[in-house]
């Protein structure tokens, strides 16, 4: 039983996207890499789901598995009532126009030899949407929507733009097929803070304007908090905690969430970074993940039970779900974990 549980899922008929027991494994010479081990999540229409975790936690793999690139090893991905894992070939390709990805590195994700005009009209050409003039019109409108001037930019190539502008082009490219779901994989981590704020604001605006639903993948907790309606914290291919951003950041229930929050350097000199609060060690190998709770090797509160029994996700406060035998209670600073009657599958 990889069982991380599904307690945090909502009514299947409400969700635009519902991922159940998603497993992604990659073969490697040293054994199977357990990139994602049975995670479940759902997104309501118009919602932004933040996926946060350190590198190697499986957040990007989850994002890619949703659009079946590559197809997951096991599990279901239901998008708008259709199980994507059951689709093949052309049907899947056609459906992918409604799920679009935005990548981390804006410069390398654009073809350097093509003009912006071609980059943006290509998706419509492939699907034979509209006449050339209509396509041109869509390209112009989309460029304006992402804050680029069509007149001066359409006939330029990616290298003539800055990183932030390239990210705007990537966003525009994702939008021309009129997707319902946008999967943003670290869309701002390659950008400077001043530009990062521009792009984050832009994504919020576009979401409202085009009625988008978003999966927002990032390692920066502050960024995720800013954009998300619901946040999923991942660690080594598992979900640790799911909650609304304000609840999660004020009262983290999972020791890992707490550690993550405490590790963030705050731009305030009166907050002294203390050595004791830092998480020790590093991420264990996903080839041979720890038994029981995967976080136990670095968890300051780990006990016998954490070694033997995998924690199931359960609700600890309204709207807050955690996979931990000894979730933290009350305020963030409470160091003593309180045992909650656990183990009962919800």
């Amino acid at each position: 039983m990889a069982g991380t549980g599904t307690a945090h899922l909502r009514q299947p008929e409400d969700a635009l996207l519902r991922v159940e027991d998603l497993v992604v494994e990659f073969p490697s010479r040293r054994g199977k890499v357990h990139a994602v081990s049975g995670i479940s999540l759902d997104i309501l229409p118009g919602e932004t789901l933040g996926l946060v975790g350190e590198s190697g936690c499986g957040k990007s793999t989850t994002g890619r598995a949703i659009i079946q690139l590559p197809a997951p090893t096991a599990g279901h991905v239901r998008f708008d009532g259709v199980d994507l894992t059951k689709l093949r070939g052309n049907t899947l390709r056609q459906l992918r126009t409604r799920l679009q990805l935005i990548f981390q590195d804006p410069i390398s994700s654009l073809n350097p030899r093509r003009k912006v005009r071609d980059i943006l009209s290509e998706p419509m050409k492939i699907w034979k949407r509209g006449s050339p003039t209509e396509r041109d019109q869509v390209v112009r409108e989309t460029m304006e929507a992402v804050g680029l001037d069509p007149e001066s930019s359409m006939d330029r190539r990616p290298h003539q733009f800055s990183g932030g502008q390239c990210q705007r082009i990537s966003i525009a490219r994702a939008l021309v097929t009129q997707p319902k779901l946008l999967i943003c994989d670290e869309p701002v981590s390659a950008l400077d803070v001043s530009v990062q704020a521009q792009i984050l604001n832009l994504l919020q605006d576009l979401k409202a304007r085009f009625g988008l639903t978003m999966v927002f993948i990032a390692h920066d907790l502050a960024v995720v908090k800013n954009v998300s309606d619901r946040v999923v914290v991942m660690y080594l291919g598992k979900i640790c905690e799911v909650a609304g951003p304000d609840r999660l950041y004020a009262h983290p229930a999972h020791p890992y969430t707490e550690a993550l929050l405490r590790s963030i350097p705050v731009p305030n000199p009166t907050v002294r970074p203390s050595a004791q609060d830092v998480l020790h060690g590093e991420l264990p190998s996903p080839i041979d993940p720890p038994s029981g709770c995967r976080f136990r090797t670095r968890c300051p509160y780990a006990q016998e039970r954490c070694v033997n029994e995998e924690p199931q996700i359960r609700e600890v406060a309204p709207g807050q779900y955690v996979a931990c035998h000894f979730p933290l209670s009350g305020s963030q600073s409470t160091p003593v974990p309180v045992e909650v009657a656990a183990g009962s599958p919800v």
Partner: protein
Amino acid sequence: MSTPQGTDGSHPGGNSSSAEKAAAVSRTATATLPPNRRLLEVVDLQTQFRTARGMVRAVDGVSFSLDRGRTLGIVGESGSGKTVLARSIMGLLPKRNVVRHGKVLYEGLDMLSASADQVRDLWGAEMAMVFQDPMTSLNPVLRIGNQITEGMRFHLKMDRKTAGATALALLKEVGIPEPARRLRQYPHELSGGMRQRIMIAVALACGPKLLFADEPTTALDVTVQAQILNLLQREQRDRDMAMILVTHDLGVVAGRADEIAVMYAGQLVEKAPTATLFANVRMPYTEALLKSIPALDAPSHSRLQAIPGRPPDLVNPPPGCRFAPRCTYARDRCHEEPPPLLEGGQDHFYRCWYPVGLSAPVKLRSGPDRASAVDGPTTPEPPAPPSEPTKGVE
């Protein structure tokens, strides 16, 4: 450095008399602490790159000093010149197509006019650098042990055995498990965080007095970042080593640097002791930078205050204040006249005609007081200690 009109904002001394300039220089050089505490003195450093488009003024008239055991945080966005500044000081730039002017005095020795051999003797032994990318900064075909001992064998003339033992002790010190085994491993066998610890061990091997850390944690995860920053701080304290911590993240330097210098478009735009800087931000750029960072304690979906536009082209920087085209407070004067770096008391320097939080606009020259014709800055802030910043520095 020579702008069409002959004087430049980074040369405030040029605006006043040369005697004043000399006085200002000597004052910075022999300030408060006894002279033997002073480790590094950078005076009007300029670094330019010759390119097909013209000279790129990557570092344009930067001056500061650093005492033993102190930490200076240099903050800026990409392209602000922070990395080039660190490398210019250490002399780690290619010879071709690079022009450096000014003075870099390391314990009295001018690094810019010193011979290649002299500088080489300082590298590793006196000053060392921890680079940003631990993946590519280590030699992939050399064992960890060799990379750590190389400097000690060369500079300290240690024999193989002593150097090996010191390397082992160093690995323990920087928190590497199974140090003896690691010494025989190659960089690819270690994780990013471990490699950064190795980099730190390499840098510390000869006991340098000055450590440059150029974005030491940018390539690492937050939990590992915290470990590495704590490690750097501990080593620095134990060894009474001075550190220049270069980063784009104000959060990284906030709790760890004694003093912070903010760079924009090749210039220092604000410099102050850490607490002073955060309490009384004067430079609009610093303020904008702080506001654009999503705050952890802000409610979700709060609108971020982005800085419009992007940094200027360093081949043809704007004639006035370099931040003026993006500044919300900018007025006519900002677009025409480059502001000098002014001292506003409490060792707080800023390069702005209309500093944030000061009701009286900056007066520098005599003559028609055009500044008073306009209103004070729009953000009122509690008591601004320096009433009339007038002293030019550098």
